[in-house]
């Protein structure tokens, strides 16, 4: 009895989870494998269209013989690159139709015209014509004839399915694609974006954890950048930072803080003089990082605030009795209590920032020194149309992330051991 109950439970569980598991498998896991597969192939954007045999049907009446009709099929191979084999053709006709002359490749049976056209090379074109006559001499409905579409079938090689593999893509990614530059840009973007959003998260969480009027309102406002659509925010920032008529530059010019407008999103480097030393700051990258911090610190804020509110009040009361200063309380009580959250946040944000695409794409499109690896995936795959190369870049992203996670967990594990 118990056994059958357990069995039905199992069965039910599988039925309940199957749809979700199937969908996730089809749309997430299968593409990941497909990506590995594609990254070892030489595939371009134009190769992924499957070649199709096509026929355009043109119906012409013959002027002095109303009972006859000419039908012209413009046949072609849609692909400019690949052949189609064993093209078959079928088209149905009304019952009172009789064919006048039969092409040797064809057969007319049961009011259906069936043809075997054999193999079509790439770019193949043919005008195929048949003439029909009605048995009873009745009028022919041209529109009805036109509306019936012929069916064509054929087999062709799918470039994605053959087993020609190559390491060329990876070679290109690592040696011909300014890999170091891409990697460093991505790393700066990820690292400083992550650190910045966590620092701002700590500051704001500490702030909202205080009691003041309008605190709940403040909490929602702080989350606005995180929940609003990235498209709207990116274009607003672009407008704000525009060198010609952007608000920020206009304000700075108005107060005579700067003399010429600064192109914050379009200038790769800016010379900065600190204490007599000249620094070259990557300006556009810095701006993009600022946007990233602005948009994602709310997540850090929320996580840290939730943790702060869970710290027992007794800890602070005891510190007060000992006469601890606010800074001592922050560094000796608050900070140790939130390190666990921070280390999780660091990992999550690092992974997500590392493969963040939209923000940079919308702000700069990857220009002026902001080309990160995800942007490169898009550029390789869709601008240069080299799908295999794009896949290889995205594989490199995954490998780098796995390496990061491996070392991060190792480091984390060590620190947990020490404590």
């Amino acid at each position, binding site marked *: 009895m118990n056994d059958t109950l357990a069995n039905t439970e199992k069965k039910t569980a599988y039925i309940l989870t199957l749809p979700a598991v199937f969908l996730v498998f089809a749309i997430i896991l299968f593409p990941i494998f497909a990506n590995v597969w594609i990254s070892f192939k030489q595939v371009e954007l134009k190769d992924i269209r499957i070649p199709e045999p096509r026929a355009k049907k043109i119906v012409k009446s013959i002027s002095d013989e109303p009972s006859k009709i000419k039908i012209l099929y413009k046949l072609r191979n849609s692909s400019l690159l690949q052949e189609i084999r064993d093209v078959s053709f079928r088209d149905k006709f009304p019952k009172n139709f009789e064919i006048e002359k039969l092409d040797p490749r064809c057969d007319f049976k049961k009011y259906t015209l069936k043809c075997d056209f054999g193999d079509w090379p790439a770019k193949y074109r043919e005008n195929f014509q048949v003439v029909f006559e009605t048995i009873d001499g009745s009028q022919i409905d041209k529109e009805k004839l036109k509306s019936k579409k012929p069916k064509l079938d054929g087999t062709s090689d799918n470039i994605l399915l053959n087993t020609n593999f190559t390491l060329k893509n990876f070679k290109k990614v690592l040696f011909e694609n300014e890999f170091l530059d891409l990697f460093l840009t991505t790393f700066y973007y990820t690292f400083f974006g992550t650190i910045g959003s966590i620092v701002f998260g700590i500051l704001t969480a500490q702030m909202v954890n205080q009691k003041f009027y309008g605190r709940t309102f403040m909490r929602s406002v702080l989350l606005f950048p995180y929940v609003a659509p990235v498209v709207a925010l990116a274009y607003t920032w672009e407008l704000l930072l525009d060198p010609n008529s952007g608000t920020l530059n206009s304000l700075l010019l108005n107060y005579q803080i700067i003399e010429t407008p600064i192109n914050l999103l379009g200038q790769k480097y800016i010379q900065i003089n600190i204490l007599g030393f000249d620094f070259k700051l990557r300006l556009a990258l810095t701006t993009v990082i600022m946007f990233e911090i602005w948009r994602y610190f709310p*997540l850090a804020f929320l996580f840290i605030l939730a943790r702060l509110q869970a710290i027992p009040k007794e800890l602070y009361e005891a510190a007060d009795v000992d006469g601890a200063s606010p800074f001592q309380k922050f560094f000796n009580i608050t900070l140790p209590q939130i390190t666990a959250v921070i280390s999780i946040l660091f990992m999550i944000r690092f992974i997500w920032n590392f493969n963040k695409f939209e923000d940079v794409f919308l702000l700069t499109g990857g220009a002026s020194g902001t080309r990160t690896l995800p942007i490169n995936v898009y550029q390789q795959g869709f601008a240069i149309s080299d799908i295999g190369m794009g896949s290889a870049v995205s594989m490199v992203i995954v490998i780098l992330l796995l390496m990061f996670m491996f070392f991060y967990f190792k480091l984390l594990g060590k620190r947990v051991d020490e404590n």
Partner: protein
Amino acid sequence: MRTKNTIIFSLISTFFLIFLVSIWKILATLQGLDIKSLNLEIIFIFGFLTSLAHLGINDKIKTIYKSIIFSLIFVFFDGYLMQKLPLWYNIGVFLILYFYTSKINKYNYESLKEEHSTQVILFDFLTLFGILFFSFVILFPFYMMLVTSFKTQIALLVNPLDFSINFGQDLKDLFKSYFVIFKSYKFGKYILTSTIVSVGTVIITLLFAIPAAYAVARLNFFGKTFLSTSILIIYMFPAIVLVIPLYTIFSQLGLRNSIEGLLIVYTATTLPVAIYMLQGYFKSIPKELEEAAILDKLSWFGIITKIIIPLSIPAISSVALYVFMIAWNEFLFSLMFLDNPNSFTLSRAIQYLSGDAETPRQYLMAGSVIVTLPVLFIFVYFEKYLVSGLTAGSVKG
């Protein structure tokens, strides 16, 4: 010690005052006032003197009179320096000074003598500063987005600093950008597409996620732990890796440029989050209810529809709102899969609009307002549900 504390207190409070007044001046400049300088030095000297005077006067004058006197002196000086500025500007300065003096009222010589007093002051003012700073930095872009959408091309070019809206004009002129994007750029259609895709994603996700979450939360089966850990791993997985394979597969299946294609991808990407959030909630429902139902010979379908769903309406609605927001905001996949303007979503349409350099920016901003408003409205209105869900790690970004 006392002089050192006094100076530190005065300095901190002065910087706070400078910040307050500067923000007000920037906002006033953006209303079209001709302010060419922030006069930071003057504010600094005045603020410093005020703080010292405040400590000196202490309780000899009633707080309210003291605040009013300080404020009036500052307004007088500021008005003298700036000249010919409208009344509302000066009233604003007065209120800021009043606010400021009432804030520093908390402190006097006695409190400065206490232990760690400078740190306490620093913390207090940093909090105040942070509240204002973050409100300004966050709200300003949204404010700019809204105002720009109400402006005309000429007004934007002539004076980019003029953020004032002329409410005196005809409503038709005020909302001109909105009329234009609906009429010439078919935004009505895009809103419809976005709504269908988002609502569709919510419905399908819930249909798939509720049974799966129930199974993970309640039933025992082989592969359960594997399933629940892989949910989290999949959730972390980079979306950029899926783009190329999905593009190729969808191209070959003819699913690109179709709402169905987007629905499938959005559902698959939101499912892990939805299952994760829901199973957490389902676990908190007392088991006894279901045991009674099993005795009543209710099938699993009956248990889910008659017991689980009615009991978890709050959790289900918060998941629904989330999934809606994710689908509504989504950009990457809509960029990849849609290149026919007939099947654009709102985000994709705005990006397409911006690709044309000729497109006036007020149209772009009007589009941005349209895509942002529903999300912010949902967020503010249902904030309580959503925040608890956010900390459960639900919105990916």
